[in-house]
């Protein structure tokens, strides 16, 4: 007997990363620059808080929206760091990773047949999330010529004026691009003019190396039409603890909570205690990690230039986005450099339009490994020149 799967699931292909993962698993000498998570451990203070909560037996569900103290702390943090003012009672929801928050937003806001514009290349889960919610994806490609920033021209060309939602991710995974206030203002005007709701994934906000991160929700008229996502995975090195949050208008967060309370009930309790401590006492840990990423960023950019590969000047997240040499596809390059040199990188194509011809290279790896990996890439490029 064959059980018929839903059309929505059948529509979504397996992740483009999966195949590479299987190749990498076959050998034990691989240096992976394909990882989208910090190589640092969760700061000890946060781990201690998690351990203490377990010792005290605090393992029951929390409020659906998350512990009140944590929502208070998030409210204070986003206000202090990013000028985002949200009521912890009604405008913040704590989720199992920012990914859950993104999924909740799609399910709360997208009706079947509605269109979600996604600035691409982008995190690989947005597109399947839209499809699972019954929506349709409109790809809005960004390009190196525009420093991988979204422009109104790109929105118009893609027909995004007719879309219902717009998904942004800055600092960007996979390019490392950031959007400054000047860049966001015309996008905000476009969203207001055409009635677009904006979903702004700002999980890498702390990892901004040149100036301060600006959220589109802080621009005039945008707070009421924007949902902001953030979490503890990246800046606080808490990927496995699965804790994120969303900030948004009362009715939207309320709708997201309605789905959340029937599916997840509440985010992991232990992780909520860790997150509370992370916000209260781990600022120096975050600063130290960001400084180290910045040194690695500069190192990797410099090495790619020496190797002779054009590379975009990434200003955020922990990725850089070099171009593969002419005459070879990013997928071929990634497969061959993995086979021949044991270096794992991700072809930019898997992140959608605009990523073609590029590689996502994560520098969330120690400098010694980065140095060796870049030397191997250099050998590979020289041998295949």
């Amino acid at each position: 007997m064959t059980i018929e799967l839903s059309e929505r699931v059948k529509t979504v292909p397996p992740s483009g990363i999966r195949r590479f993962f299987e190749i990498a698993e076959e050998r034990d000498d691989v240096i992976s620059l394909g990882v989208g998570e910090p190589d640092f451990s969760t700061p000890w203070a946060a781990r201690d808080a998690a351990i203490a909560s377990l010792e005290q037996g605090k393992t029951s569900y929390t409020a659906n929206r998350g512990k009140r103290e944590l929502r208070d702390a998030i409210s204070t943090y986003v206000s202090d760091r990013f000028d985002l003012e949200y009521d912890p009672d009604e405008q913040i929801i704590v989720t199992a990773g920012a990914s859950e928050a993104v999924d909740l937003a799609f399910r709360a806001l997208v009706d079947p047949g509605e269109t979600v514009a996604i600035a691409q290349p982008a995190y690989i889960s947005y597109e399947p999330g839209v499809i699972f919610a019954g929506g349709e994806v409109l790809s809005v490609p960004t390009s190196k010529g525009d420093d991988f920033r979204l422009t109104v021209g790109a929105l118009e060309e893609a027909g995004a004026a007719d879309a219902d939602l717009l998904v942004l991710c800055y600092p960007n995974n996979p390019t490392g691009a950031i959007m400054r206030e000047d860049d966001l203002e015309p996008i905000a005007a476009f969203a207001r003019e055409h009635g677009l709701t904006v979903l702004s994934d700002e999980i890498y906000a702390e990892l901004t190396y040149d100036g301060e991160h600006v959220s589109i929700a802080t621009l005039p008229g945008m707070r009421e039409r924007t949902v902001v996502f953030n979490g503890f995975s990246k800046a606080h090195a808490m990927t496995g603890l699965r804790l994120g949050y969303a900030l948004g208008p009362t009715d939207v967060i309320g709708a997201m909570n309605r789905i959340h309370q029937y599916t997840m009930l509440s985010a992991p309790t232990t992780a909520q205690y860790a997150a509370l401590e992370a916000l209260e006492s781990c600022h120096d840990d975050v600063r130290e990690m960001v400084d180290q990423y910045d040194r690695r960023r500069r190192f990797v950019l410099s090495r790619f230039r020496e190797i002779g590969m054009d590379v975009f000047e990434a200003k955020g997240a922990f990725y850089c986005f070099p171009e593969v040499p002419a005459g070879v596809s990013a997928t071929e390059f990634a497969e061959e450099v993995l086979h021949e040199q044991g270096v794992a990188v991700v072809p930019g194509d898997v992140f959608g339009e605009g990523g073609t011809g590029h590689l996502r290279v994560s520098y969330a790896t120690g400098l010694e490994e980065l140095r060796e990996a870049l030397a191997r890439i250099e050998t590979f490029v020289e041998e295949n020149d």
Partner: protein
Amino acid sequence: MSEREVLESLRENARYSTADIARMTDLDESEVDAVIEELEDAGVICGYQPVVDWDKLEDERVRAEVELNVRLDRETGYGDIAERLARFPQVTALRLVSGDYDFDMEVEGDSIREVSQFVSEKVAPVPEITQTVTHYVMTSYKENGIELGNGDEDDRLSFSP
């Protein structure tokens, strides 16, 4: 700022090449060389040494932390005593500290007997020293900010979104 960045890089790993430090700091190699030279000339950088996990070697290396109490007089200050002790090659570190004792001294030798003899025959007899307490190092877990041992395996997935 560039001084600080170069210093941070060297403290992370003093064997980083000038080229690597230049890449990390966006400086020219010649600028990195100049900064290092200035730091050396000014005595900010006093030397370069490897961080050694002696437990991994078969040769025995004995280390001890020695607490010293001293009595000062009009002619003799802490600096004078420190100068005398620091000249012994067996002394690898010497610090004036606050608390229950005055000096914290690190001593190395090839055997417990050698270290003991050094403390009892060379250090204890110094007239100003009133008391020594020797603690032998049994296992070292961290040196100069570097955790010793095999380190954790990177068990992250090779690829993740």
